[in-house]
């Protein structure tokens, strides 16, 4: 059955989903506290809140993954209990996850089949997929294995999988974090079409501009409670922000970079790396220079080579040509991470727990992960007192809320752990700092602190390279900006000479040689030994 065969109730007063008094507690926190939510038929309803506000928990309750302690759910007027995702689907609730639940080694049609109960005729399903993708402008190749798809295409598979269940309510969880600006517009078109046909949409996001553009009603969450219900099109972004975090977002004190100290501190020249992951992205001929005392931003949707580039720069992957990466004119391409760190190159990775920090080890021990030169380690032996002093300095300077240096890393919240990892790298006074997704999943207060600390570090003379998906953030703190797409890096431009539209275009891989403001030296000169 195709969605078009059903004419859904579209009168504005028809309530599709009503949550009343939803409360869910965990031992250390109340995630949802007496939440009321009313979603009407055919409306695009935003749920707005920063990380930790309770959005995820609420969605998990609606989709049957988690059960509320208190509260009622009414679906189209009748009370229901949603105890499993299967039940949610049977009611007509579909969900497109933020971190996709797709199976890489299977094809698109097999993935879709898994979302449907009962036996599946793959051939018939394939034609249904094609029909849907034509109808809603979501191009998908049913026979293609997911691992060979771009992130955007994967999301389209997720959406089609949800649509094939004829949902009456579609939950979209942070859908645009992986899309280029043009693709975002296409998605909005699809959502508007669905809403016009009577499907309700719950749109979870923290991106104020998008919500103001797309949604006609927004419920705002803060600290587990509803702090406002409004029409986002009538509100300004700063009003919405205030409702979201309860105060003004602190602005970044950002004087433009005055003096470039040590030009060419980090020089990448014609770096090409073949990914050893069959699902990875190869890097092609990347050339980039970061001077001391500046912040260079690298924009791009994840999956375009950022991981591979960061691994090559940090030393986790060794370069074929040692001189393709150099630090203050010293070739470091063949050095491992510890050696690069000793030369002054530090790195804050995008994964915190499990890579930037070991979850079950204490903060002291986690300091030792990268701060392990003298005096923390001497003659191969760990020096507990010196390690403790270092950790305490990290905690104090960056205001990390934790149970002390003996606390396990996993006991810290996302924002505080990120601050600690930042502190650890920054306090080693690096000559070059690489940062990947600095404020992903971090609450607004900590995010502002982190951005400010990057600017302060820049002012002290460090060369900083920031990779991020958040264009706003990059435009806020960077001096120059480039785009990484399909394993290549675009020409680099001063932030003042470009805007989000241009960058958005570059993210699709389009840039012209005329935009290139690099000097011939920057463009690809090899460092003569």
């Amino acid at each position: 059955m195709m969605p078009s065969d059903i004419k859904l109730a579209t009168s504005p007063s028809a309530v599709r989903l009503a949550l009343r008094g939803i409360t869910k507690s965990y031992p250390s926190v109340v995630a949802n506290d007496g939440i009321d939510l009313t979603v009407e038929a055919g409306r695009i309803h935003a749920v707005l809140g920063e990380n930790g506000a309770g959005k995820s928990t609420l969605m998990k309750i609606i989709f049957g993954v988690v059960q509320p302690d208190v509260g009622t759910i009414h679906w189209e007027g009748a009370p229901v209990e949603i105890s499993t995702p299967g039940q949610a689907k049977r009611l007509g609730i579909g969900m497109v996850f933020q971190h996709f639940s797709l199976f890489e080694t299977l094809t698109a049609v097999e993935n879709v089949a898994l979302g449907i109960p009962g036996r599946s005729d793959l051939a018939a399903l394939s034609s249904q997929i094609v029909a849907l993708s034509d109808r809603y402008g979501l191009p998908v190749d049913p026979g293609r294995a997911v691992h060979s798809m771009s992130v955007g295409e994967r999301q389209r598979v997720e959406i089609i999988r949800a649509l094939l269940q004829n949902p009456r309510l579609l939950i979209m969880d942070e859908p645009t974090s992986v899309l280029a600006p043009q693709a975002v517009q296409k998605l909005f078109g699809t959502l508007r079409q669905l809403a016009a046909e009577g499907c309700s949409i719950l749109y979870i996001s923290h991106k104020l501009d998008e919500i103001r553009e797309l949604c006609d009603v927004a419920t705002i969450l803060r600290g587990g409670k509803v702090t406002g219900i409004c029409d986002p099109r009538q509100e300004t972004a700063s009003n919405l922000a205030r409702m979201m975090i309860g105060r003004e977002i602190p602005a970044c004190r950002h004087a433009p970079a005055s003096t470039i100290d040590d030009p060419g501190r980090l020089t990448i020249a014609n770096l090409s790396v073949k990914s050893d992951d069959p699902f990875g992205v190869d890097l092609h001929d990347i050339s980039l220079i970061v001077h001391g005392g500046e912040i260079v931003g690298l924009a791009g949707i994840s999956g375009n080579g950022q991981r591979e580039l960061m691994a090559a720069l940090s030393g986790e992957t060794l370069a074929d040509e040692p001189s393709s990466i150099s630090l203050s004119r010293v070739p470091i391409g063949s050095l491992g991470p510890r050696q690069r760190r000793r030369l002054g190159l530090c790195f804050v990775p995008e994964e915190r727990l499990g890579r930037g920090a070991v979850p079950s080890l204490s903060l002291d021990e986690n300091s030792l992960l990268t701060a392990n030169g003298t005096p923390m380690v001497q003659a191969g032996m760990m020096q507990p007192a010196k390690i403790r002093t270092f950790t305490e300095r990290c905690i104090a300077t960056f205001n990390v809320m934790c149970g002390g240096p003996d606390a396990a890393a996993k006991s810290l919240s996302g924002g505080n752990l990120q601050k600690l990892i930042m502190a650890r790298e920054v306090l080693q006074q690096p000559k070059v700092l690489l940062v990947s997704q600095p404020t992903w999943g971090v609450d607004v207060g900590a995010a502002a602190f982190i951005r400010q600390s990057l600017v302060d570090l820049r002012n002290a003379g460090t060369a900083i390279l920031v990779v991020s998906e958040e264009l706003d953030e990059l435009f806020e703190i960077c001096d120059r900006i480039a785009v990484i797409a399909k394993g290549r890096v675009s020409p680099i431009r001063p932030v003042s000479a470009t805007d989000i539209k241009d960058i958005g275009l570059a993210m699709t891989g389009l840039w012209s040689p005329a935009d290139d403001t690099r000097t011939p030296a920057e463009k690809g000169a090899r460092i003569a030994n």
Partner: protein
Amino acid sequence: MSGVLISIVIATLVAGTPLVYAALGELVTEKSGVLNLGVEGMMLTGAIVGFITATATQSIWLGVLAAMLAGALLATLFAVIAITLVANQVAAGLALAVFGTGLSSLLGKGYTGTSLVLPPSPVAATVSQVAWVGQYLTQLHPLVYLSWLLFAAISYFLYRTKAGLVLRAVGESPASAHAIGYPVVRIRYLATMFGGAMAGVAGAYLATIYTAIWTEGMTAGRGWIALALVVFATWRPARVLLGAYLFGGVTTAQLFGQVAGIPVPPEVMSSLPFLATIIVLVLITRNRTLVRMNAPPALGQPFHANG
């Protein structure tokens, strides 16, 4: 000459059959993302249970059935620890191997060295009358033929049915499968129990048909070879079959060599299957891409059901 060739083929098939059962069973288990290292223990317990039951009931089939139950039961014990309690699967599997081996010794206490003698089957007598192939067909126990059926059934199940698709999905990403609403724990239990049942059949075949005598530790490492088989068959049923018969061949060569009086010490011949396993393992897994593309991505990783 062709008579010798046929004997070699038959000996190879016979020697490979326990590996076929054990490895195919473990394949299904591993496809769901569970690594059960306890195959040796399940095989041995299946062997003694099958032997005792066959001796008591004078029926190999009942013995095989009992062995399946015993294997499945032991696998369930492992599943409780490794799946429900989310323990380290390597340690749990080792515990099962040691436990199952010890259990088989205890149960087999009164049967050491005794042999199983059964009256000839009337079905076999009839089949052997069939012109020209009859005498060869009956040299293979029906379990050998059933193992081929098992191979076909598993291949069909894994790649042609929705349930098989779900199993593969669970083995790739249990979190995603759970998020879509599939009962990951239940699926893994079933896959693990199936693997145990098959290991039981393999053991019973060894003890009641291959050598109809019970001795302690009679599987002599075949359970571990079955595990290695799954790896270097890169988790594909057809390759498992091939690998099992390859080892059947090595074992046969070892026996023929001893009989033919080749002047190599018997211990060296007995080492051949183990050395061959190492060599083939190295040859296959050194191609990391091949392994990464075929190994169930979630293999051996603990899965915490939400809530």
